[in-house]
Protein backbone atom coordinates (compact mmCIF):
# COMPACT_ATOMS: atom_id res chain seq x y z
CA UNK A 1 0.00 0.00 0.00
CA UNK A 2 2.92 2.29 0.71
CA UNK A 3 4.17 2.27 -2.91
CA UNK A 4 0.67 2.82 -4.23
CA UNK A 5 0.28 5.88 -2.06
CA UNK A 6 3.22 7.69 -3.63
CA UNK A 7 2.13 6.83 -7.17
CA UNK A 8 -1.41 8.11 -6.55
CA UNK A 9 -0.06 11.37 -5.18
CA UNK A 10 2.03 11.88 -8.33
CA UNK A 11 -1.01 11.22 -10.53
CA UNK A 12 -3.09 13.55 -8.40
CA UNK A 13 -0.64 16.36 -8.94
CA UNK A 14 -0.67 15.69 -12.69
CA UNK A 15 -4.46 15.88 -12.74
CA UNK A 16 -4.44 19.04 -10.62
CA UNK A 17 -2.13 20.72 -13.13
CA UNK A 18 -4.38 20.22 -16.18
CA UNK A 19 -7.07 22.76 -15.35
CA UNK A 20 -4.79 25.59 -14.19
CA UNK A 21 -2.56 24.95 -17.23
CA UNK A 22 -5.45 25.58 -19.59
CA UNK A 23 -6.66 28.46 -17.44
CA UNK A 24 -3.34 30.31 -17.37
CA UNK A 25 -3.08 29.83 -21.13
CA UNK A 26 -6.48 31.47 -21.62
CA UNK A 27 -5.66 34.34 -19.25
CA UNK A 28 -2.34 35.15 -20.91
CA UNK A 29 -3.75 34.77 -24.43
CA UNK A 30 -6.50 37.25 -23.71
CA UNK A 31 -4.06 39.62 -22.04
CA UNK A 32 -1.72 39.52 -25.04
CA UNK A 33 -4.50 40.25 -27.49
CA UNK A 34 -5.77 43.05 -25.23
CA UNK A 35 -2.28 44.59 -25.06
CA UNK A 36 -1.85 44.27 -28.82
CA UNK A 37 -5.17 45.99 -29.51
CA UNK A 38 -4.69 48.73 -26.96
CA UNK A 39 -1.01 49.25 -26.09
CA UNK A 40 -1.78 52.33 -23.99
CA UNK A 41 -3.71 50.13 -21.51
CA UNK A 42 -0.81 47.65 -21.21
CA UNK A 43 0.04 48.55 -17.61
CA UNK A 44 -3.48 47.99 -16.34
CA UNK A 45 -3.86 44.79 -18.36
CA UNK A 46 -0.58 43.44 -17.00
CA UNK A 47 -1.62 43.98 -13.37
CA UNK A 48 -4.95 42.29 -13.99
CA UNK A 49 -3.21 39.47 -15.85
CA UNK A 50 -0.96 38.75 -12.87
CA UNK A 51 -4.00 38.74 -10.60
CA UNK A 52 -5.76 36.27 -12.87
CA UNK A 53 -2.70 34.06 -13.09
CA UNK A 54 -2.32 34.12 -9.32
CA UNK A 55 -5.91 33.03 -8.72
CA UNK A 56 -5.75 30.30 -11.36
CA UNK A 57 -2.37 29.03 -10.25
CA UNK A 58 -3.55 28.47 -6.67
CA UNK A 59 -5.31 25.22 -7.61
CA UNK A 60 -2.17 23.70 -9.12
CA UNK A 61 -0.15 24.76 -6.09
CA UNK A 62 -2.60 23.13 -3.69
CA UNK A 63 -2.18 19.95 -5.74
CA UNK A 64 1.58 20.30 -5.44
CA UNK A 65 1.39 20.61 -1.66
CA UNK A 66 -0.98 17.66 -1.44
CA UNK A 67 1.64 15.60 -3.27
CA UNK A 68 3.99 16.12 -0.36
CA UNK A 69 1.38 15.67 2.34
CA UNK A 70 -0.12 12.48 0.89
Amino acid at each position, binding site marked *: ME*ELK*GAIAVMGYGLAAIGPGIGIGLVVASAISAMARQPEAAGMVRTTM*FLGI*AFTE*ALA*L*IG*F*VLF*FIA
Partner: protein
Amino acid sequence: MEQLILASGACDPANDIICKPDNVIELFKFEDNLFAIGPWGITRTVFLILLAMVIVLTLLFFGLRKRRMVPSKFGVTIESLMQFVRDDIAVGIIGPEGTKYYPWLLSLFMFILVGNLFEVTPLINFPITSRMAIAGGLSLLTWVIFVFVGFKKNGFRYVGALVWPTTVPIALRPLVGLIEFVSTFLLRPLTLAVRLFANMVAGHLMLTLLLVSGWVFMSSVGEIGARALIGVPWFAFGLGIFVFEIIVAILQAYIFTLLSAVYVESSIHIEH
Protein backbone atom coordinates in the same frame (compact mmCIF):
# COMPACT_ATOMS: atom_id res chain seq x y z
CA MET B 1 23.85 3.87 -7.84
CA GLU B 2 24.22 4.68 -4.16
CA GLN B 3 25.08 8.24 -4.98
CA LEU B 4 22.34 8.74 -7.53
CA ILE B 5 19.63 8.40 -4.94
CA LEU B 6 21.40 10.87 -2.70
CA ALA B 7 18.65 13.42 -3.06
CA SER B 8 15.82 10.98 -2.42
CA GLY B 9 16.35 9.09 0.79
CA ALA B 10 13.20 6.96 0.91
CA CYS B 11 13.88 4.98 -2.24
CA ASP B 12 12.66 1.44 -2.40
CA PRO B 13 15.49 -0.48 -4.16
CA ALA B 14 13.10 -3.21 -5.33
CA ASN B 15 10.81 -0.71 -6.98
CA ASP B 16 12.85 2.19 -8.29
CA ILE B 17 9.98 4.12 -9.88
CA ILE B 18 8.84 5.55 -6.60
CA CYS B 19 11.46 7.71 -4.99
CA LYS B 20 10.39 10.32 -2.54
CA PRO B 21 12.57 12.65 -0.50
CA ASP B 22 12.28 11.59 3.11
CA ASN B 23 13.08 14.99 4.51
CA VAL B 24 10.17 17.06 3.18
CA ILE B 25 8.73 16.91 6.68
CA GLU B 26 11.42 19.40 7.64
CA LEU B 27 9.41 22.05 5.79
CA PHE B 28 6.95 22.00 8.67
CA LYS B 29 9.33 21.28 11.52
CA PHE B 30 11.75 23.18 13.70
CA GLU B 31 15.44 22.63 13.06
CA ASP B 32 18.26 22.32 15.55
CA ASN B 33 19.53 25.53 17.04
CA LEU B 34 22.61 27.17 15.60
CA PHE B 35 23.17 28.96 18.88
CA ALA B 36 21.03 30.26 21.69
CA ILE B 37 20.72 33.66 23.32
CA GLY B 38 19.25 33.03 26.76
CA PRO B 39 15.87 31.33 26.28
CA TRP B 40 15.71 32.10 22.55
CA GLY B 41 17.20 29.48 20.31
CA ILE B 42 18.33 30.76 16.92
CA THR B 43 17.86 28.28 14.09
CA ARG B 44 19.14 28.82 10.57
CA THR B 45 15.72 30.09 9.44
CA VAL B 46 15.41 32.55 12.30
CA PHE B 47 18.94 33.77 11.65
CA LEU B 48 18.07 34.34 7.99
CA ILE B 49 14.86 36.20 8.96
CA LEU B 50 16.93 38.55 11.10
CA LEU B 51 19.45 38.90 8.27
CA ALA B 52 16.66 39.76 5.82
CA MET B 53 15.36 42.36 8.27
CA VAL B 54 18.78 43.92 8.62
CA ILE B 55 19.25 43.97 4.82
CA VAL B 56 15.89 45.67 4.24
CA LEU B 57 16.53 48.27 6.93
CA THR B 58 20.05 48.95 5.62
CA LEU B 59 18.85 49.31 2.03
CA LEU B 60 16.10 51.74 2.98
CA PHE B 61 18.29 53.67 5.42
CA PHE B 62 21.19 54.21 3.05
CA GLY B 63 18.91 54.74 0.06
CA LEU B 64 17.03 57.57 1.73
CA ARG B 65 19.65 58.99 4.07
CA LYS B 66 20.50 62.05 2.04
CA ARG B 67 17.61 63.70 0.26
CA ARG B 68 19.19 65.47 -2.67
CA MET B 69 17.90 67.19 -5.76
CA VAL B 70 19.82 64.69 -7.88
CA PRO B 71 20.06 61.45 -5.90
CA SER B 72 22.83 58.91 -6.32
CA LYS B 73 22.35 55.83 -8.49
CA PHE B 74 21.67 53.68 -5.44
CA GLY B 75 19.17 56.21 -4.15
CA VAL B 76 17.37 56.25 -7.50
CA THR B 77 17.08 52.46 -7.44
CA ILE B 78 15.56 52.41 -3.97
CA GLU B 79 13.29 55.35 -4.74
CA SER B 80 11.99 53.80 -7.94
CA LEU B 81 11.30 50.56 -6.06
CA MET B 82 9.35 52.49 -3.44
CA GLN B 83 7.56 54.50 -6.11
CA PHE B 84 6.58 51.27 -7.84
CA VAL B 85 5.01 49.90 -4.66
CA ARG B 86 3.25 53.20 -3.92
CA ASP B 87 1.94 54.07 -7.38
CA ASP B 88 1.33 50.65 -8.89
CA ILE B 89 0.23 48.66 -5.86
CA ALA B 90 -0.95 50.92 -3.02
CA VAL B 91 -2.57 53.79 -4.93
CA GLY B 92 -3.17 51.83 -8.13
CA ILE B 93 -5.22 49.12 -6.46
CA ILE B 94 -6.67 50.63 -3.29
CA GLY B 95 -7.16 54.18 -4.56
CA PRO B 96 -6.22 57.55 -3.03
CA GLU B 97 -6.59 56.21 0.53
CA GLY B 98 -4.00 53.57 -0.33
CA THR B 99 -1.18 55.81 0.92
CA LYS B 100 -2.28 54.84 4.44
CA TYR B 101 -1.42 51.19 3.73
CA TYR B 102 1.74 52.01 1.78
CA PRO B 103 4.27 51.48 4.66
CA TRP B 104 2.84 48.04 5.39
CA LEU B 105 2.85 47.04 1.71
CA LEU B 106 6.40 48.32 1.23
CA SER B 107 7.76 46.36 4.19
CA LEU B 108 5.88 43.26 3.03
CA PHE B 109 7.30 43.61 -0.49
CA MET B 110 10.87 44.27 0.59
CA PHE B 111 10.94 41.48 3.17
CA ILE B 112 9.49 38.86 0.82
CA LEU B 113 11.75 40.01 -2.01
CA VAL B 114 14.90 39.69 0.09
CA GLY B 115 13.68 36.40 1.57
CA ASN B 116 12.96 34.96 -1.87
CA LEU B 117 16.24 36.13 -3.33
CA PHE B 118 18.09 34.18 -0.62
CA GLU B 119 17.20 31.19 -2.80
CA VAL B 120 19.66 32.25 -5.49
CA THR B 121 22.21 33.91 -3.21
CA PRO B 122 25.44 31.91 -3.21
CA LEU B 123 26.37 30.35 0.16
CA ILE B 124 22.82 30.78 1.49
CA ASN B 125 20.72 29.06 -1.20
CA PHE B 126 17.70 28.78 1.02
CA PRO B 127 14.53 30.85 0.59
CA ILE B 128 13.14 31.63 4.04
CA THR B 129 9.67 31.89 2.53
CA SER B 130 9.80 28.14 1.81
CA ARG B 131 8.99 27.55 5.46
CA MET B 132 5.25 27.48 6.02
CA ALA B 133 5.57 29.38 9.30
CA ILE B 134 6.83 32.50 7.52
CA ALA B 135 4.49 32.46 4.53
CA GLY B 136 1.62 31.57 6.87
CA GLY B 137 2.54 34.27 9.36
CA LEU B 138 2.68 36.96 6.68
CA SER B 139 -0.65 35.87 5.19
CA LEU B 140 -2.20 35.80 8.67
CA LEU B 141 -1.08 39.41 9.09
CA THR B 142 -2.80 40.30 5.80
CA TRP B 143 -5.93 38.44 6.98
CA VAL B 144 -6.05 40.34 10.28
CA ILE B 145 -5.57 43.66 8.48
CA PHE B 146 -8.24 43.17 5.82
CA VAL B 147 -10.82 41.83 8.26
CA PHE B 148 -10.11 44.70 10.67
CA VAL B 149 -10.34 47.28 7.87
CA GLY B 150 -13.60 45.74 6.66
CA PHE B 151 -15.22 45.96 10.09
CA LYS B 152 -13.84 49.43 10.73
CA LYS B 153 -14.99 50.94 7.43
CA ASN B 154 -18.30 49.14 7.02
CA GLY B 155 -19.24 47.71 10.42
CA PHE B 156 -21.33 44.57 10.30
CA ARG B 157 -22.46 45.39 6.76
CA TYR B 158 -19.07 43.95 5.77
CA VAL B 159 -20.13 40.41 6.67
CA GLY B 160 -23.75 41.12 5.77
CA ALA B 161 -22.92 42.08 2.19
CA LEU B 162 -20.79 38.96 1.86
CA VAL B 163 -23.28 36.37 3.12
CA TRP B 164 -26.40 38.05 1.61
CA PRO B 165 -25.35 39.51 -1.78
CA THR B 166 -28.21 41.68 -3.01
CA THR B 167 -27.09 41.65 -6.65
CA VAL B 168 -27.86 37.92 -6.95
CA PRO B 169 -31.35 36.36 -7.47
CA ILE B 170 -32.90 35.63 -4.09
CA ALA B 171 -33.01 31.85 -4.51
CA LEU B 172 -29.26 31.69 -5.04
CA ARG B 173 -28.30 34.03 -2.21
CA PRO B 174 -27.68 31.41 0.55
CA LEU B 175 -25.45 29.36 -1.74
CA VAL B 176 -23.47 32.30 -3.13
CA GLY B 177 -23.21 33.77 0.37
CA LEU B 178 -21.79 30.53 1.76
CA ILE B 179 -19.25 30.27 -1.07
CA GLU B 180 -18.25 33.92 -0.63
CA PHE B 181 -17.91 33.53 3.14
CA VAL B 182 -15.71 30.45 2.88
CA SER B 183 -13.58 31.86 0.08
CA THR B 184 -13.06 35.20 1.81
CA PHE B 185 -12.31 34.10 5.35
CA LEU B 186 -10.77 30.65 4.86
CA LEU B 187 -9.45 30.20 1.33
CA ARG B 188 -7.91 33.65 0.92
CA PRO B 189 -5.29 33.36 3.67
CA LEU B 190 -4.68 29.70 2.82
CA THR B 191 -4.04 30.26 -0.88
CA LEU B 192 -2.02 33.40 -0.20
CA ALA B 193 0.34 31.44 2.05
CA VAL B 194 0.40 28.29 -0.06
CA ARG B 195 1.12 30.20 -3.29
CA LEU B 196 4.29 31.77 -1.92
CA PHE B 197 5.36 28.66 0.00
CA ALA B 198 4.77 26.18 -2.84
CA ASN B 199 6.47 28.33 -5.46
CA MET B 200 9.56 28.66 -3.31
CA VAL B 201 9.64 24.97 -2.33
CA ALA B 202 9.22 23.92 -5.96
CA GLY B 203 12.05 26.17 -7.11
CA HIS B 204 14.32 25.10 -4.27
CA LEU B 205 13.71 21.39 -4.93
CA MET B 206 14.19 21.79 -8.67
CA LEU B 207 17.49 23.64 -8.25
CA THR B 208 18.76 21.14 -5.70
CA LEU B 209 17.81 18.06 -7.71
CA LEU B 210 19.14 19.31 -11.06
CA LEU B 211 22.40 20.78 -9.81
CA VAL B 212 23.14 17.93 -7.41
CA SER B 213 22.36 15.16 -9.90
CA GLY B 214 24.43 16.92 -12.57
CA TRP B 215 27.29 17.30 -10.14
CA VAL B 216 27.08 13.67 -8.98
CA PHE B 217 27.26 12.43 -12.57
CA MET B 218 30.13 14.69 -13.52
CA SER B 219 32.20 14.03 -10.41
CA SER B 220 31.94 10.24 -10.78
CA VAL B 221 33.68 10.40 -14.18
CA GLY B 222 36.39 8.01 -12.95
CA GLU B 223 33.91 5.23 -12.21
CA ILE B 224 31.42 5.46 -15.06
CA GLY B 225 33.60 6.89 -17.83
CA ALA B 226 32.01 8.70 -20.77
CA ARG B 227 28.53 8.20 -19.35
CA ALA B 228 29.34 11.00 -16.93
CA LEU B 229 28.50 13.37 -19.80
CA ILE B 230 24.82 12.79 -18.94
CA GLY B 231 25.43 15.18 -16.08
CA VAL B 232 26.32 18.10 -18.35
CA PRO B 233 22.81 18.80 -19.71
CA TRP B 234 21.38 18.36 -16.23
CA PHE B 235 23.77 20.90 -14.81
CA ALA B 236 23.10 23.30 -17.72
CA PHE B 237 19.37 22.89 -17.22
CA GLY B 238 19.86 23.64 -13.53
CA LEU B 239 21.68 26.85 -14.39
CA GLY B 240 18.82 27.82 -16.73
CA ILE B 241 16.33 27.23 -13.92
CA PHE B 242 18.58 29.39 -11.72
CA VAL B 243 17.84 32.43 -13.93
CA PHE B 244 14.15 31.50 -14.04
CA GLU B 245 14.06 31.36 -10.23
CA ILE B 246 15.27 34.97 -9.99
CA ILE B 247 12.21 36.01 -12.04
CA VAL B 248 9.95 33.82 -9.89
CA ALA B 249 11.33 35.32 -6.68
CA ILE B 250 10.58 38.88 -7.83
CA LEU B 251 7.20 37.93 -9.29
CA GLN B 252 6.04 36.14 -6.15
CA ALA B 253 6.96 39.10 -3.94
CA TYR B 254 4.97 41.33 -6.31
CA ILE B 255 1.98 38.97 -6.39
CA PHE B 256 1.85 38.59 -2.61
CA THR B 257 1.86 42.36 -2.15
CA LEU B 258 -0.63 42.88 -5.00
CA LEU B 259 -3.08 40.35 -3.57
CA SER B 260 -2.78 41.87 -0.08
CA ALA B 261 -3.69 45.24 -1.60
CA VAL B 262 -6.59 43.69 -3.53
CA TYR B 263 -7.97 42.06 -0.38
CA VAL B 264 -7.80 45.34 1.54
CA GLU B 265 -9.48 47.12 -1.37
CA SER B 266 -12.30 44.58 -1.41
CA SER B 267 -12.84 45.17 2.33
CA ILE B 268 -13.05 48.94 1.86
CA HIS B 269 -15.38 48.95 -1.16
CA ILE B 270 -17.81 46.12 -0.44
CA GLU B 271 -20.30 46.94 -3.19
CA HIS B 272 -18.64 44.83 -5.87
